[in-house]
């Protein structure tokens, strides 16, 4: 356990070295939220309801949703993994008495810890600014369920990211693939807009995939648009996906390692 703690601490220092860069990302995030708020404010200037959401619910969707996506983010870990594969750094890990997957989880958790602190600050500022519009659930059981979903959501994202990162075993040109996969993931998770603006068939389809459970689904719980009972079913689906992803990683890791040539060492 202690060795993973060391990985955690080292990574924390690494991130703090590049704090200006880090700050840049947060500014970008705030503007992304502003873009959505401007668009929806203009729309709700002429109507009361869109797709079953009133103005407060939509603002909550955007602001609280953004906080959720910070909690579950791993800040471009796929590029770190790809770099380690392509520059041969992976060899360092293979000879260490530590599993690469566990290393990745502890390293990423450290990267995210700092992201989390800055995310909490950004989210708090936004929540204070829009406090008149934010709707929060009262039921403590609901909060517990949402927190559980977010922790699992973090792991789901992390596992998907690791899977994507492993593409680097097979091809060198990855940034385009990464970019597109991430965008599609955001789309299917409901980051751009609430999924139920789309036809029911699409919503059902996306609820069969893991992505919606990292964003759209917890917010529906938060807004009280989904019952706790349905929420528990969602949690079960999330756990099933997490297990499936874990085995996919194990399988892909074995195949990838056969391809791995330690180029760059």
């Amino acid at each position, binding site marked *: 356990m202690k060795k993973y703690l060391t990985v955690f601490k080292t990574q924390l220092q690494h991130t703090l070295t*590049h704090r200006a*860069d880090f700050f840049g990302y947060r500014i970008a995030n705030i503007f992304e939220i502003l873009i959505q708020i401007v668009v929806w404010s203009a729309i709700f200037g002429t109507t009361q309801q869109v797709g079953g959401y009133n103005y407060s619910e939509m603002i909550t969707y955007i602001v609280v949703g953004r906080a959720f996506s910070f909690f579950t983010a791993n800040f471009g870990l796929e590029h770190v993994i790809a770099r380690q594969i392509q520059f041969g750094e992976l060899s360092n890990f293979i000879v260490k008495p530590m599993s690469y997957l566990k290393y990745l989880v502890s390293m990423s958790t450290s990267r995210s810890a700092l992201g989390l602190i800055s995310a909490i600050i950004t989210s708090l500022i936004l929540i204070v600014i829009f406090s008149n519009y934010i709707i929060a659930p009262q039921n403590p059981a609901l909060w517990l369920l949402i927190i559980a979903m977010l922790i699992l959501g973090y792991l789901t994202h992390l596992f998907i990211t690791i899977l994507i990162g492993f593409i680097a075993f097979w091809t060198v040109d990855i940034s*385009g693939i990464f970019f*597109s*996969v991430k*965008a599609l993931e955001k*789309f299917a998770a409901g980051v751009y807009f609430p999924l139920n603006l789309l036809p029911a068939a699409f919503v059902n389809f996306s609820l069969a995939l893991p992505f919606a459970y990292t964003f759209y689904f917890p917010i529906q719980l938060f807004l009280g648009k989904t019952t706790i009972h349905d929420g528990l079913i969602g949690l079960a689906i999330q756990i099933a996906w997490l297990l499936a992803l874990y085995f996919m990683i194990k399988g892909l890791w074995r195949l990838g390692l056969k391809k791995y040539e330690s180029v760059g060492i």
Partner: protein
Amino acid sequence: MKKYWSIIRNEIQRQFTYRIAIAAYAFGNIAELVALAIIWTVVYQSIEVVKGYNASEMISYVVFAWFFSFLTTTYAFEANVARDIHMGTLSNILVKPMGYLKYMMTVATGRIFVALLVVLIQVIIVFYFFWDKLIFSIDFPTALLLAAMLVVSYLINLLLSILIGFIGFWTAEIAGIYLALKIIKNFLSGFYFPINLLPATLVKISLFFPFAYTAFIPIQLYLGKISFAEGLRGLAVEIVWLVILYGIIKIVWRFGLKKYESVGI
């Protein structure tokens, strides 16, 4: 002139080497447009007009904003500029019998070729899907003015990229800063939404910056929301900004070169 042509040819060949990687960006590039188109389609089911835009004007706005911005983008050329500085490859350019700015502008222009082909294919698909919602009506002088605005927009974007890339003279980690500047730029240029959805004072402020003239004003001209004379005024503002940016680049370049240490050579 011939030497510039060779540079462009080299770059085009280089881009064709990475054709799959470049094409892979296409799915992600279009995700935001699809999201915006869905939001507006849903919204206009219950509303006639939002801030003076009817349904086909708004769909045309987001589609053409997307199209124009991908016609005039430099595809993160700032990263190339910064990489040259960080890796010391800038020294290669310094010893060439050609000005840095001219050289880089030629490289950038050759570099966008494959991406441009991809965008043209994408836009045909997008036009096909939104055909009955898009507005196609433009007279010859307006088309000419629009083309001129887009060319100047490209040059503005290019000079901005180079200027942002020069941050690399002073700091090593830049991705976060780039992202922040890019999103702010998209916000002010009206890439995601017509900037007149913003409060009137913000619209006035954004018209002092060059960004609005690279997306918002050309589309307003295309949609016939501003007159030909106002379009000409926009072009004049663009040209003034181009000259200003050129001056700033010259100055920053001189300071940056003093800091440059040719690390990596």
